[in-house]
């Protein structure tokens, strides 16, 4: 019984082993994700099958885990690379913007300086000849204007770089926005009238006090109103004030300055907020200005937690809208 049984078992086991080893060939390709079957009803063969399957599944699991780790690693590497690329690109863009700013500033300083030095030398030449020209008075005015222009430029550039260096403090205080708006407009009265423009107000009858940096708001308003007065001729300028609340239920206040001037074309409307850009290259000659006013105004508005935008159609005037929180709160975030 025992002997015959063993004989049968050995031949059956042989078949079982061949069966199992045939199936195991698949593992040679590194694929362990399968189950081995054995058709022989033998205890030892079944044990072997079970063990083989156990080893196979352990191997498959180990491989899966390694792949998962590699994939994770790949993902992390990809994420970090993207972050680094982004940081590098924004650093490059910033440094390009800086050198563009420097190049433009050099140009803007050298043009009036050329007039200052050139006209001074011309006057000196004429004096040395003993014949001061009939133009001397005019020439001196050119020098004075170029000098004043340089002063404006230097002040604006210094303001901007002080803000950028984080050296500008905000001094919020409570004040009545209506009285403030009227008195600020009054300082531009002469400029507005000199071009034959009328100034209209659209102010509410009464309103609560606001809390922000009055000096900075004044600087912004003077810039925007100054532009409206400078570019508009024989038209009207409307200065309005209103309160609004945003989705977050914070109280906002808005000044809007609407003029009947030349307007700004769609191709220029975003550029005018960039440093040294003027919608029309010949503006400097006709209207003066540095192209820094709106850049500075935008920066100041952001510092105060607000923003500035413009709506305009070429030939139909422009409306600049400045929006600020009614109550300034330091955020600790650099502008």
């Amino acid at each position, binding site marked *: 019984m025992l002997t015959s049984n063993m004989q049968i078992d050995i031949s059956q086991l042989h078949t079982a082993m061949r069966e199992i080893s045939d199936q195991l060939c698949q593992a040679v390709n590194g694929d362990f994700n399968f189950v081995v079957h054995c058709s022989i009803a033998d205890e030892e063969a079944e044990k072997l099958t079970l063990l083989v399957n156990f080893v196979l599944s352990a191997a498959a699991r180990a491989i899966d885990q390694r792949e998962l780790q590699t994939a994770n690693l790949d993902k992390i590497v990809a994420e970090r690379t993207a972050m680094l690329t982004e940081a590098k690109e924004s650093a490059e863009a910033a440094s390009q913007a800086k050198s563009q700013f420097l190049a433009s500033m050099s*140009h803007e300083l*050298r*043009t009036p300086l*050329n007039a200052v*030095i*050139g006209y001074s030398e011309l006057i000196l*030449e004429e004096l040395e000849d003993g014949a001061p020209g009939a133009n001397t008075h005019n020439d001196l005015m*050119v020098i004075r204007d170029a000098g004043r222009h340089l002063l404006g430029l230097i002040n604006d550039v210094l303001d901007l770089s002080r803000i950028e260096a984080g050296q500008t403090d905000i001094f919020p205080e409570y004040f009545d926005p209506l009285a403030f708006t009227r008195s600020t407009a009054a300082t531009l009265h002469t400029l507005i009238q000199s071009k034959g423009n009328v100034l209209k107000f659209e102010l509410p009858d009464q309103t609560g006090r606001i809390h922000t940096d009055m000096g900075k708001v004044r600087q912004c308003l003077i810039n925007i109103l100054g532009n409206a007065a400078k570019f508009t001729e024989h038209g009207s300028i409307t200065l309005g004030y209103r309160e609004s609340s945003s989705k977050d239920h914070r109280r906002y206040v808005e000044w809007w300055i609407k003029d009947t001037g030349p307007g700004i074309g769609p191709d220029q409307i975003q550029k005018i907020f960039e440093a040294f850009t003027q919608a029309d290259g010949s503006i400097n*000659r006709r209207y003066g200005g540095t192209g820094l006013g709106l850049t500075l105004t935008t920066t100041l508005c952001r510092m105060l937690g607000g923003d500035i935008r413009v709506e305009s159609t070429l030939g139909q005037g422009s409306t600049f809208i400045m929006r600020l929180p009614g109550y300034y709160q330091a955020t600790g975030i650099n502008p």
Partner: protein
Amino acid sequence: MIILVAEDDSRNREMLVRRLLRRNYSVLEAENGLSVVEMAKAQHPDIILMDIAMPELNGWEALAQIHAVYPELPVIILSAHSMIDDQRRAISAGAVAYLSKPIDFDRLLIKIEQFRR
């Protein structure tokens, strides 16, 4: 000797023209890139003093158009852009000299005299 002055800033153009006239040069004026090309063709100046940042056609484009017709005509670039690149670019674009503003007038006169025929 006829000098063509191309400069869009009217005050700086007038100043340069008056200082050249005092030294008995004949002076022609252009206030943008297009008219400097036209005047170079129509009036045959001996030398051109050219600004770069000009409306219509900038100085680089004007220089190329002029040299396409008169490759030998000397052009001196006078520019308020004073980056090193501009100077290099001026020379490789075929200008005979590059002076940055504020202009050293004595140096400009020496350059001009080098091209008296």
